[in-house]
């Protein structure tokens, strides 16, 4: 028996259970850390924000080739996606998941390496920015095409099940924009058909690039789709770190315990452009005043200070440490060699003898 989000208990490990969807419960009025991982999570959020601020400034200085995509405002959701995963799990993050990637164990230097094209990075200059990962360590490297990674995680989980591994789960993220692709539909459906231990966290940040929700979908609430797919569905206020840890953490637990695939839909506002090239002037003042537009990092920090959970000095020390780690990551990556066209191995398959010799 496990406790589900509604506070009731349910049998686990059966085939076609009654599915559940729920809206968030009231937050408990507590004065201590509202979740045991709250400070850990806050640390990863801070690191992600600090890293991405540095990244954006390098971009503005013309030091980064290609795009820069940040997760400003989405750190609470993202960190909750990565922090409950462990070795043996599969994580397929997307474009705004710096916090979650770090929490799952991606070294910061790998991020700097990928943006700077270092040959020692996981992508070796062959791919850049958010398109990075180390599949052997359960960090899948996203392709751009939104929705395509969902079924890939399903397959990884099936393979683990076949091999007799136990207790693993997969978690993948998607935006409300990406929720509208055919690939996402097929991926969610096949996940439920295969009954794999999967959590899908969809973040509605109210814009897909510049397109607002009204032109993206017409259903009342994206979470309602969960039932239609055979998922269990939950909503969460993505600006609230404690709620994210609670709701996504519970979804991870349920998936591990053998319940059907889980969909969590978080609501936030993207607090940056789609990429750093974008001034997001299409986000009106009106929208910026909505409750979902609050900054999750500021809210968490205010919660910590207002409740005197940590003193100002400690907070400052955390910030300094984050800044140091960021400096370290970039200075290491900057010293590493970049790839050269003349020295590159231009064979796209691993079976070298079968490489086609066309010019």
């Amino acid at each position: 028996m496990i406790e589900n989000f509604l506070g009731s208990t349910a049998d686990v490990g059966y085939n076609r259970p009654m599915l559940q969807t729920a809206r968030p419960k009231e937050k408990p009025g507590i004065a201590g850390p509202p979740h045991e991982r709250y400070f850990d999570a806050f640390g990863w959020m801070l690191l992600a924000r600090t890293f991405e601020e540095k990244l954006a400034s390098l971009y503005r200085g013309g030091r980064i080739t290609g795009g820069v995509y940040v997760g400003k405002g989405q750190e609470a959701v993202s960190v909750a996606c990565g922090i409950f995963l462990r070795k043996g799990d599969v994580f397929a993050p997307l474009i705004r998941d710096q916090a979650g990637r770090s929490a799952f164990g991606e070294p910061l230097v790998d991020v700097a390496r990928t943006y700077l094209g270092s040959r020692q990075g996981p992508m070796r200059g062959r791919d850049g920015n958010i398109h990075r990962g180390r599949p052997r360590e359960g960090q899948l490297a996203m392709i751009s095409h939104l929705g395509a990674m969902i079924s890939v995680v399903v397959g990884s989980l099936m393979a683990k099940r076949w091999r007799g591994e136990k207790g693993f789960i997969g978690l993948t993220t998607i935006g409300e924009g990406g929720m509208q692709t055919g690939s996402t539909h097929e991926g969610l459906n096949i996940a439920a058909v295969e009954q794999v231990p999967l959590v899908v966290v969809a973040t509605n940040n109210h814009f897909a690039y510049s397109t607002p929700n009204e032109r993206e979908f017409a259903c009342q609430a994206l979470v309602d789709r969960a039932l239609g797919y055979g998922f269990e569905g939950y909503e969460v206020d993505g600006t609230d770190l404690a709620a994210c840890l609670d709701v996504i953490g519970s979804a991870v637990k349920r998936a591990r315990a053998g319940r059907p695939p889980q969909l969590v839909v978080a609501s936030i506002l993207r607090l940056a452009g789609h990429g750093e090239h974008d001034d997001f002037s299409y986000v009106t003042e009106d929208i910026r005043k909505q409750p979902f537009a609050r900054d999750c990092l500021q809210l968490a920090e205010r919660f910590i200070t207002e409740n005197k959970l940590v003193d100002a000095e400690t907070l400052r020390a955390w910030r300094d440490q984050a800044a140091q780690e960021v400096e370290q990551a970039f200075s290491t990556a900057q010293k590493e060699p970049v790839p050269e066209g003349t020295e590159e191995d231009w064979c796209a398959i691993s079976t070298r003898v079968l490489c086609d010799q066309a010019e």
Partner: protein
Amino acid sequence: MSITYLEAIREAQAKLLRDDKRVFIYGQDVGGTFGGAFKATKGLAKEFPGRVLNTPISEDAMVGTAIGAAMEGMRPIVEMQFADFSSIALNQVLNNAGTIFWRTGISCPITIRLPSGGTKGSGPFHSQSMEALYSHYPGLIVMTPATVEDAYTMLIEAVAIDDPVVYCEHKYLYYHLKADRLPSEGLPVGQARIARVGRDLTIVSYSAMLHESLTAAEKLAREGLEIEVVDLRSVKPLDTATVLASVARTGRLLAVGESFPWGGVTAEVIARVAAEGFHLLDAAPARVNAKDTPIPYHPNLWSAHRPSSDAIVAKARQLLRE
């Protein structure tokens, strides 16, 4: 005993499932007692419980799932019900499977079976040959077996290869081709085969068009013309060396394919020979392809759309006059 091209594909899969625990088959209607739209997996679900799985009609997710499983060490075989429907999975095949090794250094050993090519009455959406499209993109191996023996050994090899393989099996050959027995070994993948020896003209072909080409060569032989016929076997990698060696013997090249003309395999063959063996040619190379329209339904139209042995003979005669 005689065994068909289709039975060879089934037998290869049975052997793969028997010999390798990592292999599973994933596709629409492949499981249960049904065994696939063409029965290429008949009986396998019963013989190998839990390893021959029906899927929803979700070509994108079928391939995505196979990719994930392959990266975790499995050897999935995905059956597309018809090659034509693999268009829905193009993104997963081209952008995911085809890029994984290059980007991450992890190999992606999936095999995608495409029941390809035209048969009478099948129309625009159950007749296509997609090999050129898949070959255009990096990171994939594309096989086009033309014989029962190759159907068998190449499928076994496809699954053994550590990279994504698009295996184009021709529906027209399913029942038409028979062999006495299955071989234990074939030519290595990537090596073309001289299917008929000649000295007046080289026809380069593959898949079902090999047989039209051989028929054409037979007809021309009655006029005393000796046509050499090359079976490419795999179109990617393309065995340029064997083709060039043949053209060196004959001085003339005719490339024959069942696919649409624009930018296809025949164009690639001619481009390579022109670029690397221009001096070997005594006449401008020529090609015979399907017409540049959707594939028609009515047999009268279909047989005119698709290259026939007569069309090949006519083009060969023209080339030999030059």
